[in-house]
């Protein structure tokens, strides 16, 4: 008899589990080897505690009342629970703190999209080390994790979360117009972006073209020059931040697989400064992402800079399988 499970959840059988376990162990070994201690936190938390981190309540898709009437929520990522953990358990510890995790998180799904409600993430959080060195260390760990997964062709996109926020502030765009422009940018809807920008009063055709062109700049360190040529104080500050990080990476010999991408914009509310995305040629979806969230810990009462990344384990596994098949074909 078939007994259903909710869409977006799944069982894992031994053949797959063996491969996943190997992947898990390889990643944890990389993290622990670099001084990142593994932590676990509860899958359910108080809704108001999670909301403190995201600055809004919409992040958790699943909320329910417990027997006392308290509102609980399933976590939608590990960054906020770890910020909560650091504030509660390590408030007086000497920074930097290095923590890693391998855990399930929960998101809402849209019907018939093959999306997962429950999915595994592996990642690290480096707390108390500012940019650029903190960011560079996180990227270095990410590269080691990708290598350990056999994804030697994977590429890391490096952008800046504040670039467009500051650029729009500089242009005097605020309120609803600002939000909808940022949304177009996050979705990379360039046609809509141009239309929105041209509707804002006081923005010249040239400034509009600059915004669109900036969002398309991606590649090696040469794109920083191209960005500066487009001008403006916000661009100057953002490119300076990216350049610092990129130089720190070069000094560590870790810049080779990093592509600078000024159009990168992740929609989670807590990012500031550097943001990261991970791609592999074997997969049409992103493998993971991360960046800096220097203001997040403060919301929990500990004012420390922080950075981290998370990889989607199911996708890393798919990419790993594709890469193995490719290597077999080549040999």
């Amino acid at each position, binding site marked *: 008899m078939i007994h259903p499970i909710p869409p977006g959840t799944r069982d894992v059988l031994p053949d797959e589990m063996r491969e996943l376990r190997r992947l898990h162990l390889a990643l944890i070994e990389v993290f622990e080897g670099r001084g990142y201690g593994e932590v676990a936190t509860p899958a359910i938390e108080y809704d108001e505690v999670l909301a403190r981190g995201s600055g809004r309540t919409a992040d958790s898709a699943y909320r329910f009342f417990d027997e006392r009437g308290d509102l609980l929520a399933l976590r939608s*990522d*590990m*960054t906020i629970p770890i910020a909560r953990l650091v504030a509660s358990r390590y408030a007086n510890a000497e920074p930097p703190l290095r923590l890693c995790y391998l855990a399930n*998180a929960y*998101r*809402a*799904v*849209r019907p018939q*999209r*093959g*999306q*997962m*409600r429950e*999915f595994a*993430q592996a*990642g690290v959080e480096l707390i108390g080390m500012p940019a650029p060195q903190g960011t560079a260390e996180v990227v270095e760990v990410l590269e080691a994790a990708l290598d350990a997964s056999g994804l030697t062709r994977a*590429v890391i*996109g490096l952008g800046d979360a504040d670039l467009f926020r500051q650029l729009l502030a500089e242009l005097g765009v605020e309120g609803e117009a600002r939000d909808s422009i940022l949304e177009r940018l996050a*979705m*990379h*809807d*360039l*046609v*809509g972006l141009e239309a929105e920008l041209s509707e804002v009063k006081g923005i010249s055709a040239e400034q509009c073209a600059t915004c669109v062109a900036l969002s*398309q700049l*991606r*590649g090696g360190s040469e794109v920083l020059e191209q960005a500066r040529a487009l001008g403006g104080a916000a661009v100057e500050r953002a490119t300076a931040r990216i350049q610092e990080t990129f130089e720190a990476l070069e000094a560590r010999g870790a810049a080779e697989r990093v*592509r600078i*991408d000024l159009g990168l914009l*992740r*929609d*989670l509310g807590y990012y500031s400064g550097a943001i990261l*995305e991970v*791609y*592999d*040629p*074997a*997969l*049409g*979806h*992103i493998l*993971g*992402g*991360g*960046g800096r969230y220097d203001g997040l810990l403060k919301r929990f009462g500990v004012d420390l800079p922080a950075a*981290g*990344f*998370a990889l*989607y384990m*199911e*996708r890393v596994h*798919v*990419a790993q399988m*594709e890469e193995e098949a*490719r290597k077999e074909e080549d040999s």
Partner: protein
Amino acid sequence: VSVEVAGMGRAKAGGPLKLAVPRGALLEETLDALDAAGIDTAEVRGESRSLIFEGEGITLVTMRPSDVPTYVEAGAADIGITGKDVLLEQADRMVYELLDLGFGRCRMVLAGRKGDERLGEAERRLGMMRIATKYPRVAERYFEQTGRQVEVIEVKGSVELAPLVGLADGIVDLVATGRTLDENDLEVREEIVVCTARFVANRVAHKLRAAEVDELTAKLREGIAG
């Protein structure tokens, strides 16, 4: 630390760029635009029943326009061309919309029977209009934004039929010349949005094959300007 819900989608990359080409009404002008961008489309124009055409540096994959976002989002096609109507209806598909190609211009409209007040009457006396459409999400969003209540009825075939036989009070549909509406005794009541063909890209291909994608975007843009 993550943005989107983890899906299990997967697609092999590598080799020449794969471009999703819409069959149907947009096909001719899509091929013209590709020709102007220096892509050889002779084979697609031929009698062949193949779905995949391998050219120099680019593979053309032909499909229904409404499938283009699905293939491009998953990375099974790196880039593609489809109508804005399709992109609006499938707004939850994560594809990058890089360029308005300008051709395939249509209007998404609300239409009702000529000289017939059923739309207004239904709204006034029943509080609710029945709207037949192939674009249920576009229709729902439009009426929500304009503060009206509707029952959206999704149909797959000729939408014009619905108000004629009383399935619906009006329709939301794409109109090019308006002839089909006219022949079926229907008329445009409200214009919702103008739709043209768009050039879209998979988000990973947009990053990992940036030079190729940018080059083609630039050529297509020149073609529109020229």
